[in-house]
C-alpha cells in the first residue's frame, strides 16, 4: 500500500505523532477538570433532591435547570457561542487552552448528571445505617456515598473521557489541534483519504485503550464482584 506525499510529509515531520499527543492531552486535562467541577455539582444535585440527604428544593431546581440548559446545546453550537468565555478565561479563543475551556464547559454538566445517578444507586439502607451510627451528612458523602459509588464513578469517568475525545475532534473546526484537526485539514480539505483513515484508526485505538484500562481499574476496585 502506498501512502500519499502529504501523509509521508506529516509523518516525517512528526505532526501525526504530535496530533496523538495533543488529542490525549486535551482529553485527559478536560476530563480531570470536568470531574473536579462536576463531582461536587453532582453531589449537590444528589443530596438536595427530594429523596436526598438534605433536600433543598429551590437549589436543586436551579442547578438542574442550568445543567439541562448546557446539556441541550449541541457541542458545535455551544463551542461557537462560548468563544468569548474562552477569551475571558485564557486570553484567547484559539488554541488548545481555549479548546480545553470549551470542552470543560460542555462536559461538566454531563459529568454532574453521571455523578448524580451513580450516587443514586447507593442502597438507602446503608445510608440509614451510617446515620444510625451518628454520621453527619458531610461524613456520609465523603465516607459512604463516594467510596461506595467508586466503581460507578470510574465507569462514568471513562464514558466522559470518550465523549470528550469525540468533542475534541469537533473542536478542530474552529481552531483546535490534535488528530481531529489533521483529519479535517489534510484528509478532508485536501482530499487525502489515507490521512483521514489513519486518524480514524488512531482514534479508535486510543478509545479502546482508554476503555480497556478503565474497565481493568473498575474490576480491581469493585469489591462487590466475588473473587
Amino acid at each position, binding site marked *: 500500500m502506498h501512502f500519499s506525499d502529504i501523509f509521508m510529509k506529516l509523518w516525517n515531520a512528526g505532526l501525526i505523532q504530535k496530533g496523538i499527543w495533543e488529542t490525549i492531552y486535551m482529553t485527559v486535562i478536560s476530563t480531570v477538570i470536568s470531574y473536579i467541577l462536576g463531582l461536587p455539582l453532582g453531589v449537590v444535585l444528589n443530596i438536595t433532591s427530594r429523596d436526598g440527604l438534605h433536600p433543598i428544593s429551590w437549589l436543586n431546581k436551579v442547578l438542574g435547570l442550568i445543567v439541562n440548559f448546557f446539556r441541550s446545546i449541541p457541542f458545535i453550537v455551544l463551542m461557537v457561542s462560548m468563544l468569548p468565555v474562552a477569551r475571558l478565561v485564557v486570553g484567547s479563543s484559539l488554541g488548545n487552552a481555549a479548546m480545553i475551556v470549551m470542552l470543560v464547559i460542555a462536559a461538566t454538566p454531563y459529568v454532574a448528571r453521571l455523578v448524580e445517578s451513580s450516587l443514586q444507586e447507593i442502597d438507602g439502607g446503608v445510608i*440509614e445505617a451510617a446515620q444510625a451510627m*451518628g454520621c453527619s451528612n458531610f461524613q456520609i458523602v465523603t*465516607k459512604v456515598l463516594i467510596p*461506595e459509588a467508586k466503581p460507578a464513578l470510574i465507569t462514568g469517568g471513562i464514558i466522559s473521557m470518550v465523549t470528550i475525545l469525540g468533542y475534541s475532534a469537533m473542536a478542530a473546526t474552529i481552531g483546535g489541534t490534535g488528530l481531529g484537526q489533521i483529519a479535517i485539514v489534510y484528509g478532508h480539505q485536501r482530499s487525502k483519504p489515507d490521512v483521514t483513515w489513519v486518524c480514524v484508526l488512531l482514534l479508535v485505538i486510543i478509545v479502546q485503550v482508554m476503555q480497556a484500562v478503565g474497565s481493568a481499574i473498575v474490576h480491581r*476496585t469493585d469489591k462487590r464482584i466475588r473473587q
Partner: protein
Amino acid sequence: MIELKHLGKTYQTADQRIVALEDINLTIQDGEIFGIIGLSGAGKSTLVRCINLLETPTSGEVLVDGKSLTAMSQPELLKLRQSIGMIFQGFNLLEQRTVLRNVCFPLEIAGVKSQDAKKRARELLELVGLSDRENSYPSQLSGGQKQRVAIARALATNPKYILCDEATSALDPNTTSSILDLLHRINKELGVTIVVITHEMKVIDRICDRVAVIDHSHIAEEGKVSEVFINPTSEIARNLIFPRDRTVLETEGGKRLRLSFDGKTTCGPHIARMILACQAPVSILMANTKELDGVIYGYTIIELPTDPHQSDKIIGWLENSEISFEEVE
C-alpha cells in the same frame, strides 16, 4: 433506660394523612431484651426508628437515660447515636470495605485512632466468631456472617443499647437461631440492652424478657413474655401466639377450652386425670409447649363433649385444679 412518652408519628402526603404511630408509651429497662412484635404495616419499624430519631416523631417525647432526644441539637444527637447500635434486616454493610474496616467504621466516625479501632474491631470479630474473615468483603459472606459483622459493627462503640430491626427475617431457621443466641449472649455477657423488632413469635419467646404487641399504630398489650404468652388479652396477641388452624374448625361443635400450663403445672398427666375423674371423653385439638428462661410453658386446646352434663362436670373439675383455662372460639 429508654422511655417513649405519648409518641406519635403521622406522615402527610399530598392528599392524605397517614398515622404510623399514636400515643405510644413504653419503658425499656436497662439490661433487658425487649421485644416489639406486630404484623407488617403495624408501625414497628417506624417505632424503632423513633428511638434513635432516624424518624422524627410528630408528637411526644423520646428519653434515653433521662435525656430528651427530641429536644437535642443535631451535634448532640449525632453524639448520642454513637451509644445506640443498630442492626437491620438487610445488614447494610459497606460493600466496598473489608469486614475489618466495616467494624472500624463507627469508630472512625467517633474519632478513634486507626490502630486502636483495628484492635477493638478484631476483639469484636473474635466475639462474633469471624476472626478468620477480617479481610473478606461483604459480597463473599453468607447472610448469617453478614449479620455477625453488622452486630460486631453495632457493638464497636461500646453502646449501651442495640436496636434490631427484623434482624433475622432474611435468614434461614438455623442461622436465625445462631444469631438470636449471639444476641442473647451479648445481652448476658456485656449487659447491653437490646430492643428487638420482629413479626415472628419464635424470636420473642426465644430471647426476650418483655414484649409489646403493636397493632394498627397502637400498643395492644405489653408485659413479661411468659405472662403474655400464657394469657394474651388482645386479639392480635392471640393471633400471633395461637395461630389459627383451619382443620381445627371442622369438628363436632362442643365447647372449646384453652388450658394454659405454667412451670408448676406443665408436668403431670392432667388431661388423663381429668378424663378419669369426670368419666367424660375430650378431643385434643392442638397443643404446644415453649421454654422461656428455663421454665416450660404450654397450652392445649380441647373440645368438650356436646353433652352439657359432661361438659359442666369437666369445667367444674378444672375450676378446682391449678390449671388456668378459658373458652375459645
